[in-house]
């Protein structure tokens, strides 16, 4: 019903200056950090705040059912308090394998290691629902994600991705989300590109999706070949962006355009 429109506006930004990668870790001063929520209209904000009408809560409900019926509750007895800091702890390094895992990866590790169950595919409905349920327990908390020495290489790789130009439009993430945040692109206001609301219900998708799906949408929008959801590239980017959003409130399941 609604036609997909091209990306006329983005091309206009392509000539903007590049920021040297080493100059600063983040392109936005901490006092100027603003959640994607603040770039929404009052009506969309109201939808996010409505504890019934927010459609992301459908996934929270499904996830809670899976959590209770799927055996998770055998180890995790008190989901209300246990997961309160989950928005500040992932992505993290799995002590056993040394691999970087995000919350989705942690849920899949629980399944393979403790439940003898197969991994759920990235962006599958069940994995989204479980992730959103667990993340929703951290809703309203302030994100305080520390980059340890062990996480530093992943942070650096994510930062490098954020500042690297790519795609036919030859744009890097920072050109829109650091340098032009707040500017108008057609009818949209460019946000700072934070992920504190994800998994989030996007009206464009008419469904709920992960931060990695959002990264993919940005990569496609600049006409780049996106890496896979759950790939090392996107996990590293998630490390960088989570730290970049320190001080924001965890809003998942948020509503986004």
């Amino acid at each position, binding site marked *: 019903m609604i036609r997909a429109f091209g990306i006329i506006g983005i091309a206009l930004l392509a000539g903007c200056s590049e920021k040297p990668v080493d100059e600063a870790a983040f392109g936005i001063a901490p006092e100027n950090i603003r959640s994607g929520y603040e770039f929404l209209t009052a009506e969309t904000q109201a939808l996010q705040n409505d504890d*019934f009408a927010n*459609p992301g809560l459908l996934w929270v409900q499904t996830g809670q059912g899976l959590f209770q019926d799927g055996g998770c509750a055998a180890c995790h007895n008190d989901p209300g308090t246990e997961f309160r800091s989950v928005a500040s702890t992932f992505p993290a390094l799995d002590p056993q394998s040394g691999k970087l895992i995000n919350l989705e990866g942690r849920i899949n590790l629980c399944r393979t290691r403790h439940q003898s169950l197969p991994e759920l595919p990235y962006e599958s409905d069940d994995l989204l629902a479980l992730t959103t349920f667990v993340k929703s327990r951290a809703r309203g908390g302030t994100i305080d994600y520390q980059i340890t020495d062990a996480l530093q290489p992943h942070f650096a790789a994510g930062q490098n991705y954020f500042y690297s130009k790519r795609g036919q439009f030859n744009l890097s993430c920072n050109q829109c989300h650091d340098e032009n945040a707040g500017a108008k692109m057609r009818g949209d206001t460019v946000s700072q590109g934070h992920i504190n609301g994800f998994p989030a219900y996007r009206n464009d998708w008419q*469904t709920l999706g992960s931060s990695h799906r959002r990264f993919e949408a940005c990569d496609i929008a600049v006409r780049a070949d996106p890496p896979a959801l759950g790939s090392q590239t996107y996990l590293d980017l998630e490390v960088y962006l989570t730290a970049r959003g320190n001080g924001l409130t965890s809003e998942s399941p948020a509503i986004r355009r």
Partner: protein
Amino acid sequence: MRNIRLSVPDNAKSGDVIELKAMIRHDMESGYRVNIQGQTIARNILTFFECRFDDNVIFSADFHPGVSANPLLKFHMRAQKSGTLTFEWTEQTGQIFTKTAALAVLE
């Protein structure tokens, strides 16, 4: 089974007009979208919603493709006595999705 969320006030008094809320997980596929291969995605929408108190219809609605995905409805009823509320959606395929909720009314 489809995921359904309901909200029914739990402290209604007889004669009160109360707000009921219902939301169901459904793509409400409009029939106007195309997939990445350029083929039209077939329409599949919910076409009808009904809310009954015991056996009496309180409120109903006809849906068309202009209703958003995961349709939300807030509407009202006059609470008279305790009973069972049935919320029922009918898909164009004929499939029916139902969830009930108890309404407790203080006499």
